[in-house]
């Protein structure tokens, strides 16, 4: 079971996911059979584990002190690497090859997940703007700025 504090974060993130799914329906199409897969995201410098269930359009935060929730695939790494992949400013394969991101479980599901996100051209800055007043917002924004300055990964979309 998710811990109460984390469930607030999960609620806010689920809202983000639903928003993204609503205006980028191609993501679910691209996931295909993997819509029903459960993805465990382990941001090692983040406060909790995240379980993403695309079909249910739900993100649940899990305390690290609890046993792992059941999942089909897991991705593990620093927040900066996740954000870079999510935002498309860094290549997922390159992040895997370099060891910045580690994956376990159903590799196909991870690939589908990554490719679907890559095609969606998410602009995290813009998506985050919709999350104002959520308790997660402050933490993520701070982490975001820190990640950007520390890694040099550009996290705000630039027009080419």
């Amino acid at each position: 079971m998710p811990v109460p504090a984390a469930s607030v974060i999960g609620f806010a993130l689920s809202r983000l996911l639903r928003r993204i799914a609503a205006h980028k329906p191609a993501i679910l199409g691209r996931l295909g059979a993997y819509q029903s897969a459960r993805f465990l995201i382990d941001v090692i410098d983040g406060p909790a584990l995240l379980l993403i269930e695309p079909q249910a359009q739900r993100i649940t935060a899990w305390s690290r002190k609890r046993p792992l929730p059941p999942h089909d695939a897991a991705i593990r790494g620093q927040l900066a690497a996740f954000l870079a992949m999510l935002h498309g400013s860094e290549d997922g394969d390159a992040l895997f090859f370099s060891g910045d991101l580690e994956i376990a479980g159903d590799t196909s599901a991870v690939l589908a997940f990554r490719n679907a996100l890559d095609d969606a051209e998410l602009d995290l800055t813009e998506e985050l703007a919709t999350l104002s007043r959520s308790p997660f917002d402050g933490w993520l924004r701070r982490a975001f700025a820190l990640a950007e300055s520390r890694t040099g990964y550009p996290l705000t979309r630039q027009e080419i």
Partner: protein
Amino acid sequence: MMMELVCPAGTPAALRAAVEAGAHTVYCGFADETNARNFPGLNFSREEMAEGIAYAKARGAKVLVAINTFPRAGAQALWHRAVADAKDAGAHAVILADPGLIAHAAETHPDLRLHLSVQAAAANPDAINLYAESFGIRRVVLPRVLTVEEITAINREIDIETEVFAFGGLCVMAEGRCSLSSWATGLSPNMNGVCSPASHVAYVEQDGQNEARLGGYLIHRTPKGAPAPYPTLCKGCFTAPATASGPAQTGHLFEDPVSLDATELIPRLQKAGVTALKIEGRQRSRAYVAQVVRAFRAAVEAAETGAPMPTGLLARLTEGQSATTGAYAKTWR
């Protein structure tokens, strides 16, 4: 004339990124087993293909549609439909590998421009001329087993265009003639459009090391946190036990986990009569595509003016983070 840059796109977003970054031409495939990058979450629906082609055309770029697997016996209609749909979507050309499919395309769509995929493994002038004369093929993508000297010699004996790989994943085996993947997984590039498919990959942590397995077979083992290449079979780490011919050897017996970077050879390839440079990587992200295309666009422009080739721009994007000029240098063999 400036060398044509042929760039990969696994998604509509990557196609747009490639065009914006300066690709002259983009190649992509339909989201099914008709193309050799039939990976989860990748490729184009019919609608996305038509939109992608329109987007490219509006910006002066061309789109090639790869239908480069070998049609399954009894199910050829799926591949025939892909050719017809690519043509209807406005593709500049289709990239084909199977002689039966090429014969069908030449007969059914006489006006459709045909390119010979690297998967056809046409590695000498006789094979290339056979395809050119039998089917009116207009361009051949040369196998990655050839040296620059051999490419020069081939171009002297053929009169269709040649396209060669300049960057990306490197096949060490003759492409389209490799069943290593189906030996271990039952799925092959020729039949299923996948090599060492992710569905059969498992990463396992064992005694503080990361193990990558394909179909249950250990392909390589790396210390935790170290660069971990994708377990492509021919780039795995294996042991050859001692025999009459020599002592036991352990290592990357087929190929090191490096990727091809032929930037420095661009002037020589141009002189060898090569029309187009191909960048591998439809499975890579739009970020990768944009960075590689931008670097190569600069390189082909530099080659035009005789300026030196830029170096080392793309190291971070390569597998295992080292690069080779591959078979283009004879010592590779």
